[in-house]
């Protein structure tokens, strides 16, 4: 279907243009992780062991914020503003539309991972990633899984005003638990079990392997399996509960 592909590309270009025209979205997507990187980097300067662990964790957080957070926001915004409903009334195929939204999120992820990789090499002395294939596989798995979870989570958010509260109620604890368990050997067992079962900690493990140890995908299959399971769960609920319009509207 070359026509559907052309429409996807057309829609993707529109989404990119709209993204850059919205200064606050561009800020939260790029400047905030950069600030995080700079701040944490400054505090840990000279502690190479800590930096080696921090950079992959920030990369994983970037994947989550550009997919899960950004898509939950986006979908709720588009739904509550009536843009989804308007799009649904046109001949634009739904797959083209959501393909473009996903490609838009993937572009932001790729840009952020690029920034983290460059900063890791040029500023934080962790060198280039040891395992590029592992990096690509884990980033892609993370994108698909967390993007689907973001869309699925949007169904639970009743209106645009409460989006920040809902998203942060998930994003912040998940980041906190995952970072803590990843960083600390003395984390309580139950916390470790929770973190291992959530998608972010396995993503950090996978990216740590790709960036620092080069342990290879073969040693990371458990982590990949957890991310994939969340992906299946996310895709199922993303499609099943999808609402094109405001509830009660």
């Amino acid at each position, binding site marked *: 279907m070359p026509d559907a592909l052309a429409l996807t590309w*057309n829609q993707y270009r529109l989404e990119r243009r709209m993204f850059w025209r919205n200064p606050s979205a561009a800020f939260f997507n790029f400047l905030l992780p950069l600030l995080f990187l700079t701040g944490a980097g400054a505090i840990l300067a000279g502690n190479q062991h800590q930096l080696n662990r921090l950079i992959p964790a920030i990369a994983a957080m970037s994947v989550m914020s550009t997919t899960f957070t950004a898509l939950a926001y986006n979908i709720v915004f588009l739904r509550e503003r009536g843009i989804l409903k308007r799009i649904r*009334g046109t001949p634009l195929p739904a797959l083209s539309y959501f393909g473009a939204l996903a490609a838009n999120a993937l572009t932001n992820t790729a840009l952020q991972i690029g920034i983290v990789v460059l900063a890791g090499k040029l500023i934080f002395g962790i060198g280039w990633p040891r395992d590029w294939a592992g990096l690509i596989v884990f980033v892609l798995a993370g994108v698909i899984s967390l993007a689907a979870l973001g869309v699925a989570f949007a169904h639970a958010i009743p209106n645009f005003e409460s989006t920040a509260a809902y998203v942060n109620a998930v994003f912040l604890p998940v980041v906190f638990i995952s970072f803590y368990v990843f960083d600390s050997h003395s984390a309580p067992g139950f916390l470790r079990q929770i973190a291992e079962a959530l998608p972010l900690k396995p993503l950090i493990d996978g990216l740590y392997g790709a960036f620092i140890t080069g342990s290879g995908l073969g040693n990371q299959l458990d982590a990949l399996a957890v991310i994939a399971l969340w992906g299946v769960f996310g895709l199922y609920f993303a499609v099943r509960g999808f609402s094109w319009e405001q509830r009660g509207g």
Partner: protein
Amino acid sequence: MTNTAPAIEVHGLTKRYGEREAVRGIDITVARGEVFGLLGPNGAGKTTTVEILEGYRARSGGEVSVLGHDPGSRSRALRQQIGIVLQSGGIYGHITPREALRHWAAFYPNPRDVEEVLALAGLQAQADARSRTLSGGQLRRLDFALALIGDPELIFLDEPTTGFDPAARHAAWETVRNLRALGKTILLTTHYLDEAQALADRVAIVKDGRILAAGPPRELGTHQPAHYCVTYRDGSGQSVELQTSDPTSLLNELTTAALARGERLHELSVARPTLEDVYLELTADA
């Protein structure tokens, strides 16, 4: 396209939301090139009916055909031939009307010219302004423009002028008349009687999910119990008002009697029931 089959055919349409029956058996046939108005109070089932025809909602029962398609199957071929003005449809805040129209045009096989549609909708002056800076009326015109860019055969207008000032309403009416002159079929919902009267070739009055009356706005009510109203001032200057369903014989009686008394019936008038009378009588809560 010399298709003479009706643009819209609806038989026994029903829609249930759980216990609530929003639509309870509606029949509509809209001919090609016709402007058909669905008139009724809020919550009558107008929007539910239209959204079933647009393919937004699944019906609970009945037969529906829109340009020969079942809208429930959501075929792309159908969506290429219809234009929809929703009651409230949003748009990206950072897009300009010209960009939006160019982008939407790519969805359709034979779109109209972007500049032409900007002119038709009266948006030339705002063509390059971000949509978030447009007024409510200008956004509504953008809704029109986006619905027309694909050069649709059939256009759905769901309360197109709610919230408009009188000048903007008349401008919107002009647009609808222009579309009709182009041979487009239009299904319009409104709760403004004058709008239905001014635009629609035929109207159906909807209440509680049923059609109470249907026909051309001028004829609507002549079959109804609503009465002709005869008023005059008698010889003593007293104003008299009489209701009848048979004005011919009443006038004959009155004038014969007056002439026999050597009087004149001052300010004599016979008023046909207006659409408003019919509407108010039909939609009044019993």
